[in-house]
Every structure is written in structure tokens, then in C-alpha cells.
């Protein structure tokens, strides 16, 4: 079974802190994604990566950066956390090529106070 793990289920940070959310997948997938999920807004794509050291902006990249130094690990960084970044963050991975589903991690519920 594909496994996507996220470093924390719940996280509480203060405004202005630098926050790291880690995601690891064990299936050698080329593509990895970070989403945030908010009530009434659904899932929105923050960043994605289709290869090591490669990244592309999604629909809402402002206030976030990412790092992919190894194929299995994709990190989301909040440079200076703000209260409007309080959300559920979901990581996903998928094999390269067309016609594949995404495999999701359990999510990290981040609260910024």
C-alpha cells in the first residue's frame, strides 16, 4: 500500500514563526502536492513538484515556499506564519505520467495564534 505521512496531525504556532510541514511518501512517486483545505472553499493547491528540486506554483502560493531535496520528501514552509494561514494542510503524491490518482496523507491541522 502507498503510504504518505505528514510530520504532525496538529500544530499550534505563533504569528511570525517559521513553520515547517513535512511530507514523506514511500512509493517512489515523481509528483508531490501541497493543498490547504478550508470550510466552504474546498481544497486549493499551494505548490507542487514533479521531480527532485523542481517546484511549481499552484493557485495560492503567496506566503508559502517549498523544498524537495529528495524524491520521497516534500516540505512546505511558512516563512512568517499569519493567522489567515490557520487551516488543514494536505500532502499528496502521484506517479508520473497521465491517468493516475493522488494518494493523500492524513493532514496537518495548523493553528496560528
Amino acid at each position, binding site marked *: 500500500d502507498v503510504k*504518505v505521512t505528514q510530520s504532525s496531525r496538529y500544530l499550534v504556532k505563533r504569528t511570525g514563526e517559521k513553520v515547517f510541514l513535512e511530507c514523506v511518501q514511500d512509493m517512489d512517486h515523481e509528483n508531490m502536492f501541497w493543498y490547504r483545505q478550508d470550510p466552504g472553499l474546498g*481544497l486549493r493547491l499551494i505548490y507542487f513538484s514533479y521531480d527532485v528540486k523542481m517546484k*511549481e506554483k499552484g493557485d495560492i502560493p503567496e506566503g508559502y515556499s517549498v523544498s524537495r531535496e529528495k524524491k520521497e520528501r516534500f516540505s512546505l514552509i511558512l516563512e512568517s506564519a499569519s493567522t489567515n494561514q490557520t487551516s*488543514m494542510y494536505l500532502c*499528496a503524491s502521484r506517479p508520473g505520467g*497521465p491517468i493516475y*490518482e493522488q494518494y*493523500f496523507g*492524513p493532514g496537518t491541522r495548523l493553528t496560528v495564534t
Partner: protein
Amino acid sequence: SQQGEEDPQALSIQEGENATMNCSYKTSINNLQWYRQNSGRGLVHLILIRSNEREKHSGRLRVTLDTSKKSSSLLITASRAADTASYFCATDTTQGGSEKLVFGKGTKLTVNP
């Protein structure tokens, strides 16, 4: 940007009844996928239907796709209390040379025992 829009936003039925959820989208797609999310958890892939397919079955799930109307439906037959979850459609599109999934806002299904 949101592409898939699910309808209804919420659905409450009795165990044993069928549940139908609809999804409409705006642009051409490679495929359309349905996901399920239990409360506070990650998403789980249910079924993928390619753009050249019209209907697909998986266990108690039946998905239809009408590309002329840009719509899809998910039918869950003989529902169970364990089917209580949120259901999302996601359209797989190619944008700027990259394949991305764009999620709708979801239908919250409650199956009453």
C-alpha cells in the same frame, strides 16, 4: 481556481437508500476522479473515469460522465452508516504543460442508521 462544483452541498439519507451526488465542471478534462474524506482525515481515492468513458462501476459505486454537458455523477447504492463522509470530485486537466487536479467543494453525505 475551482472547476468542479458538487451538488448538493449536503445530503442526508437512511441506511439502505441510494445516494447520488453530481459534479459540474467548466473546461476540457483528461479524466475525472472522485474522492472520499472522513471527518478531519485525508482524502481517499474512490474511482477514476477517463474522458472517453461514459460509465464505470466499482463495488457499490457507479460513476457516469457526460463530457457534452461537462458533468458527472456518483451513485452509492445500498448506503451504509459507514459511508458517512464528504465526497469530492476532481478534474484532471493539463495547464501550462502540467497535469493538475482541481477539486470541488464537496458533498457532505450523512447516512442515518
